[in-house]
């Protein structure tokens, strides 16, 4: 580790080798995926709806099982995990969803504290009383996304962007090594989308956290990510720097429907 610090040798965080994923209903969602993501990268996965983006991301924390091939995440062979091992493994990986998945009828801090639930002692689980350290960690996470002053307010009184930040704080409180996000800005307006994307960027840079996100909006992906992965019909058809993505590349990823995709986004007003 010390050695790698001096030479800045890259550490592999996620490594897919010949991964296939077939759903029980025989849908082949991923086909022969080979992919290496290093620590501290900011990667965006783009592609048409149904291309397999969510499946790709959800295999990483074993929300879905892979069918064949091997997937190593932070030194763990994900496919071999069982029962309790899966839950322990997931604690290291943060995940953000399109629908913020918060308990809206309770306070912000209680939502963030949920990330400590798996490590509570039995009586704390029964009573639901959290320790002072946990509370401080939760508040610190809220401070990192800039909504500390909302800590004791009920979630249903926050805007969509603020709610996504609560979800982000909940994930940060987990102190993960990898941050996964499945369409994090799909239900936000342009202005709040930008704020949330800025948060992701800052977390990536300040905490050197690996960020992998699915995104519907090409411009946003190109603006924020260092690296773009294009998925088409379950296969990776582009993998490279964001600067090198040309219109031809996009055209291929989106099967020539890039005009429609942009048009649709223009109508939604969903650009940053």
């Amino acid at each position, binding site marked *: 580790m010390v050695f790698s610090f001096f030479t800045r040798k890259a550490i592999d965080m996620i490594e897919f080798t010949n991964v296939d994923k077939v759903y029980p209903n025989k849908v082949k969602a991923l086909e022969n995926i080979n992919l290496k993501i290093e620590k501290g990268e900011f990667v965006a996965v783009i592609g048409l709806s149904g291309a397999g983006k969510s499946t790709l991301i959800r295999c990483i*924390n074993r*929300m879905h099982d892979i069918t064949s091939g091997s997937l190593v995440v932070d030194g763990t062979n994900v496919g071999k995990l069982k029962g309790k091992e*899966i*839950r*322990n*493994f*997931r*604690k290291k*990986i*943060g*995940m953000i*969803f399109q*629908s913020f*998945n*918060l*308990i*809206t*009828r*309770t306070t912000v801090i*209680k939502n963030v504290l*949920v*990330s400590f*639930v*798996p490590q509570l002692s039995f009586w704390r*689980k*029964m009573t*639901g009383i959290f320790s002072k350290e946990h509370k401080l960690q939760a508040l610190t996470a809220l401070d990192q996304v800039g909504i500390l002053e909302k800590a004791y307010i*009920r979630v*249903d*009184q926050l805007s969509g962007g603020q709610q996504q930040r609560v*979800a982000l704080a*909940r994930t940060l409180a*987990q102190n993960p090594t990898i941050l*996964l996000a499945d369409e994090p800005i799909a239900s936000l307006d342009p202005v709040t989308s930008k704020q949330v994307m800025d948060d992701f960027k800052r977390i990536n840079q300040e905490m050197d956290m690996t960020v992998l996100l699915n995104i519907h909006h090409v411009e946003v992906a190109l603006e924020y990510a260092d690296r773009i992965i294009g998925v088409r019909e379950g296969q990776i058809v582009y993998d490279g720097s964001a600067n090198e993505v040309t219109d031809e590349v996009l055209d291929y990823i989106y099967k020539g429907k890039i005009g429609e995709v942009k048009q649709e986004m223009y109508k939604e007003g969903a650009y940053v």
Partner: protein
Amino acid sequence: MNAIEKQLYAKPSKNSYIYVISAVLLGLMIWSLFVIDFGSMEESGWAIAKNILLGIVTPDLDFLLDFTTQGVMYLLVETIAIAFLGTILGAMLAIPFAFLSASNVVPKPVAFITRLLLIFIRTVPSLVYGLMFVRVAGQGPFTGVLTIALISIGMLAKLFVDAIEDLDTSIFESMTSIGCTTFEKIRFGIVPQLIAIFLSIGIYRFDMNLREASILGLVGAGGIGAPLIFAMNAYRWNEVGSILIGLVILILIVELWSNYMRNKLVRG
């Protein structure tokens, strides 16, 4: 003028139904005039009406503010206690019934039969249960508690089921990704959502139960009802006035409190 014409000629689309209902009601009403027995009005009625009004205007204040076991205040507290304990007991009993009548939890026939049973429980008037429980537990407030608990089950179970079916389960996805077990998901994902709703349902039912408890005394099931009947039968109208004033004020206060609390619980 335009707005007026529009209103004048505006034909509500539901017109035909309104006419049908009105005609049916009118017919039934005329029929009912023959069934209702109007001959029973007695001469002394007006005198009594006057006395009741006088009694309400000049209540027996000592009796109203009396905290001993014979006074209005004590009886009102007893009524509250009956309604409160009955609601809590009813809520606890309603939870298993709620699960037994949720068709996504138990087999369809079981759910159907449970629902039918709950509807039947609800149809029977509370006084009937009161009279039945008097045979079981004798006269007194304990009987009132049992009655209130039983009549609350049906409505509480139904509202609980609705709340459970309305649950937002998207939090499960996140909790899975955090590494939570099923128990943890229920404890920290579902219970916090349900507590607020169940509390507000309970408060709503408590408000209704207070009204029920105030009449259960008529069958000897404790609370303010029995002294009301005694006072009336003995023509002690000032006492009747005290009881009615106490009862109305109590019910109004509880109604205001219940509306306030439920608003707070639901809207935060």
